Structures are given as structure tokens and as C-alpha cells.
């Protein structure tokens, strides 16, 4: 059974002028297969930094702490090795890559993650099925990766990759933002299909409780000032919905 274990994680971000700034200040979290964790926190609290640090983005430097997947040291792995080990990050701002078609990209990624090239026919079939499940126009297969996609199309396309790559632990960074209600339902169904698979865990980063009505979390964590300041169940999300983050931000300020 898969477990992502994060211990006392401290992360600096490299700013444009080259200076280092501490963003994560001691994050502890376990995500097990079969569990869905929601992380909620105000803008700039470091949620994406956590996601990027797990994925190995070159601008984010881990200064102390550990991240392991089933006991393996994730921080020692290259970005691509992390993905092949079973980690997946749906990005808040998916990247446009000119001249690389969606189908070529997906096939290359599936080949890399599975360790061998799928039969072209099987691949095309599963890609078309996954696209139709997410109401993605088949013509997108021949478009350049994320180039000119609307915000919502980019998010759906991240979930398409989630379903095709079938990781152990998925980190979804604001996959719900920028979606209208219909798209939110489609995307939530995709996440739920993934959750239903055996041995899958989800870390869902969001601002809004809206998506939690469709993707029900087992745990909710409040993230303020680069760390988790409170953990609870679904009821914590409702409290946040009613009262906002203000109380937590004040508490965090008083502590530090």
C-alpha cells in the first residue's frame, strides 16, 4: 500500500534576483493509499510550493526534512524518476510547450511511466476513452501541448494525464479553480475514477469548499504561513467556509 510521508519539510524559493526565501517552515503530512487529503489555505501560504517541492521543481530548494514514497527517498530522485516512482502533480498553471502535440506527449509519458511503449492501437483507444470521459474534443490530441488552451481546458487536460499515467499518489494543485460548474463536475468525476482505483491516494489543494462536495476528503488541513496549522475532517472545511482563514492567520501570527 502506497504511503507518501512528509516530515518537517523546509523549503526555500529562489527569487528572480537569486535570493533565497523560506516558504515552507516544517510541514508534516502522511498520505496513504485510499485516502484523500484536502489542503486549504490563503493565497501565498505556500501550498503550491509544497506541491512543487514534492515534484522536484528546480526553483524550490529543500533545506531540511524528508519526503518518502513507500520508504524511498523522493528528494534524492530526479524529477522524471519521481513521476516514474508513482507521484503525479496536476499543476496550478500547466505549461505551454510549443510544437509538441498532446498525443505525442501523452504517448511518450505513458511509455516512460510504464517502462515500455503501449501498442499504438491500445494507446489510441485509451486516450480517446479518457478524452471523451472528460468531455475533451478529440481534436485536442493534435494541438500543441496547452498552447492556447483556456484555463478550464488546461485543468481537464491535467486530469486526463492523471487518468492515463495512473500514479500511486496524486497532488492536485487547484485543479478546481477556473472551472464552471459543469466542468467542475466532469473534473471531479475524473478524480473520483482515479480514487476508486486500488492503491491510490490524493492530496487536493484548493481554496474553495465547492469541489469538496464532489470529491469528499477524509482529512482537511489548514495551511498558513508555510505549515499545517490545523487538521480535521470534513467539518473543518465547513468551518473555513463559514469563517474564512482569518482566525487561523491570526493564530499563526501569534505563534511565530
Amino acid at each position, binding site marked *: 500500500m502506497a504511503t507518501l510521508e512528509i516530515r518537517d519539510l523546509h523549503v526555500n524559493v529562489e527569487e528572480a534576483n537569486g535570493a533565497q526565501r523560506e516558504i515552507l517552515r516544517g510541514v508534516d503530512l502522511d498520505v496513504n493509499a485510499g485516502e484523500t487529503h484536502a489542503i486549504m489555505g490563503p493565497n501565498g501560504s505556500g501550498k503550491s510550493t509544497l506541491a512543487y517541492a514534492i515534484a522536484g521543481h528546480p526553483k524550490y530548494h529543500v533545506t531540511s526534512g524528508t519526503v518518502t514514497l513507500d520508504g524511498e527517498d523522493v528528494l534524492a530522485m530526479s524529477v522524471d524518476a519521481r513521476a516514474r516512482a508513482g507521484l503525479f502533480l496536476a*499543476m496550478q498553471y500547466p*505549461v505551454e510547450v510549443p510544437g*509538441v502535440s498532446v498525443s505525442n506527449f501523452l504517448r511518450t*509519458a505513458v511509455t*516512460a511511466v510504464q517502462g515500455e511503449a503501449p501498442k499504438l492501437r491500445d494507446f489510441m483507444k485509451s486516450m480517446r476513452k479518457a478524452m471523451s470521459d472528460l468531455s475533451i474534443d478529440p481534436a485536442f490530441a493534435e494541438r500543441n501541448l496547452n498552447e492556447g488552451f483556456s484555463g478550464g481546458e488546461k485543468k481537464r487536460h491535467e486530469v486526463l494525464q492523471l487518468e492515463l499515467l495512473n500514479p500511486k499518489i496524486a497532488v492536485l494543485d487547484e485543479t478546481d479553480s477556473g472551472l464552471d460548474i459543469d466542468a467542475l463536475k466532469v473534473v471531479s468525476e475524473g478524480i473520483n475514477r482515479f480514487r476508486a482505483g486500488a492503491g491510490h491516494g490524493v492530496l487536493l489543494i484548493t481554496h474553495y469548499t465547492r469541489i469538496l462536495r464532489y470529491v469528499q476528503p477524509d482529512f482537511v488541513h489548514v495551511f498558513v504561513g508555510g505549515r499545517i496549522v490545523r487538521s480535521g475532517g470534513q467539518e473543518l472545511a465547513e468551518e473555513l467556509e463559514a469563517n474564512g482563514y482569518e482566525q487561523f492567520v491570526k493564530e499563526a501570527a501569534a505563534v511565530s
Partner: protein
Amino acid sequence: MQKAVESDTPVTRLHEHASYDPADFEVPTGREEEWRFTPLRRLRGLAGADPLPAGAVTVEVEPAPEVKAEKAQRGDPRIGASYVPTDRVSARAFASFTEATVITVPAEAETTAPTMITVHGEGTDGVAFGHTVVEVGPMARTTVVLDHRGSATYADNVELVVADGAALSVVSLQDWADDAVHLSHHHVQLGRDAKVSHTVVTLGGDLVRIVPSVTYTGRGGDAELNGLYITDAGQHQEHRLFVEHSAPDCKSRVLYKGALQGDEAHSVWIGDVLIEVSATGTDTYEYNRNLVLTDNARADSVPNLEILTGEILGAGHASANGRLEDIHLFYLMARGIPYEEARRLVIRGYFGELLDKIEVGDVRERVAQAVEAELG
């Protein structure tokens, strides 16, 4: 290192001097605008005044079934009819070639295959000269591929004459061995409503300098000038374009992209566009981009647009030098794709729009493979 410098000299002044006689051009010193980027001492005497021993290239032509291919001697009226040399090396090539290749496409012919002209260099001992004329008759459509291989010190002129309503697609492949020196002028003359798609692919050579130019003789001409180059350690690859808009309602699009890697890799792109008073309704845009993959490689990029009439449809240029974007590589690698493969995908994607412009499938595939082999 990378650089983009505007030239101070007006475009009008840069191209006014033309002659068939090499003696009408001074031996360049390297200070002249048109020679300032070129390492003259690597030209093996081509720009100098001393006589040079004769070298050899073989020219093989596989014509499309509908076209006529012949060898023509000096004095044939078709030679030099559309073009007068504009620099000393070009004039020397014009004065020195022994036999010209002339391709004639009959009016209204729609050729069923490309015409392949293969220029094979037989070594760098001595200097070889060449001349090629392609005449496309009214309303005809055809494709010509110029394929340069082997080792040579070679200077030549290519005249591409496209009659009214005709369309010509040309690919010139500089796939030379690493010791070749090649200087070439390609002149396109477009008739009324004529169209050219001219694609230069420069992969090899010690020094390659290609000078494509376009003139329009009637309204509605349309020139698409594309270029793809991969400049490796020690190579000098220079592409100097000149589009002279003199007729009204004509169009030009320039799209050149390069990738540079290795010590002393040096690419030069010059994009001179002149819109004369008579050229109302002109629509022009030029774009050059360089991917500088390693330190100590240098890409010079000089767009130069001179507009002498206010009544144009559009005119613009853009030029950018950049590196491989970490964020592109990160996104691909975050999906499990190893670094080397991610890099290949991004570079192939960068050149993708140019590869798509090469209509001849075999040639496109060969260039695509060369791109991967050179950069993979």
C-alpha cells in the same frame, strides 16, 4: 554570448551596387557592412584577388518528368537575366563557373515529383564555382530541392525566376561535411501573383554564407522565406536576406530559426527589407529566433526594415535569442519523461513549424532526423 545589433546603414544603400565583373568590387577588408560578420580569412581566398586552383564539385540532376533539365554554356541569355551579382564573391562565381544547370518548367505544368539537384563536393583542394537557373513558366507549380553534400570550397549563384501566377517551392539543404566553405546567392524574381516558398536548411560546413534575395516584377507576389540552421562548435553559418518591395500589393514572410551549441559556434541572420515608394499595400513580417544551447556560442541577429511609403498593409519584425526553457523541461519530466528525451521533444517542437514547411516527405524526414542527430 548573444547579440542583436541594429545596423546604421539604410537598407537602400546596402544593396545598390551590382556588377557582373568582380573587379568592380573592392577586395573586402571586413569593415564593410556586408562583410563585417564574416571571418574573411576562412574564405580560402574566395574574396581575394589572387587566382585560385580549380576544385571539383559534381552536379547531378534528377528532373521531374514534366521539366526540362539541361547544361548551358556561358553566354546563354537565360544566365544572369534576373540577377546581377551584388558582392565580390558572387561576381567571381559568375565570372568563373564553367557550366550552368538550367531547369525549365513549362507554362501551366503541375509537376508530379520534385526536381532534385545534388551538388557533391569532391574535396577542399581548390575552389569550385557554379550557376543554376530555374525558370518556372506562367501558372506552373513545381518543387526543386538543392542538396549540397561532401567537402568543397564552393561559390555559386542560383536564379529562381517565377512567372506570372506560378508557384515555386525550393529547399536548399547545406548538409556539407565539416570542412566545407560555401557562399551562395539565391535570387528570386516573382512575377504578378507569383508565389515562392524558399526554405534554407544549413546543418554542416566550416563556413556557410547564403544570401537569398527577392524582387517583385508585378502586383500580388508572395514570398515565404524560411530557414532552419544548427550551428555547432567552430561553425560559422550566415544567412543574409534582402526583400525588395518595389511593386504594389506584394507580401513577404521571413521565418528563420536556429539552434547553436558548442564553443565558437557563430550564426548570423540579417533581414533587410526595403519597401519602396511604389510598393503601396505591402504586407511584410520577419522573424528570427535563436536557441543558444551552450555558453560560448554566439548568435547575431539584425533585422533592418526601411519603409519609404506610408501606404502599407503591415510591416514588422521580431528577433529573439533564448535558451531552452527549464519550465518546459520540468513539465515534461514531471510526467516521467527523462531529461534527454524531454530536451529532444522541446527542440523538435521548436523547429516543428519549419519542418512542416518542407513539402517533400523524404527531405522533411531527413532534416528531422538530422535535427535529432545533431541535438540529441
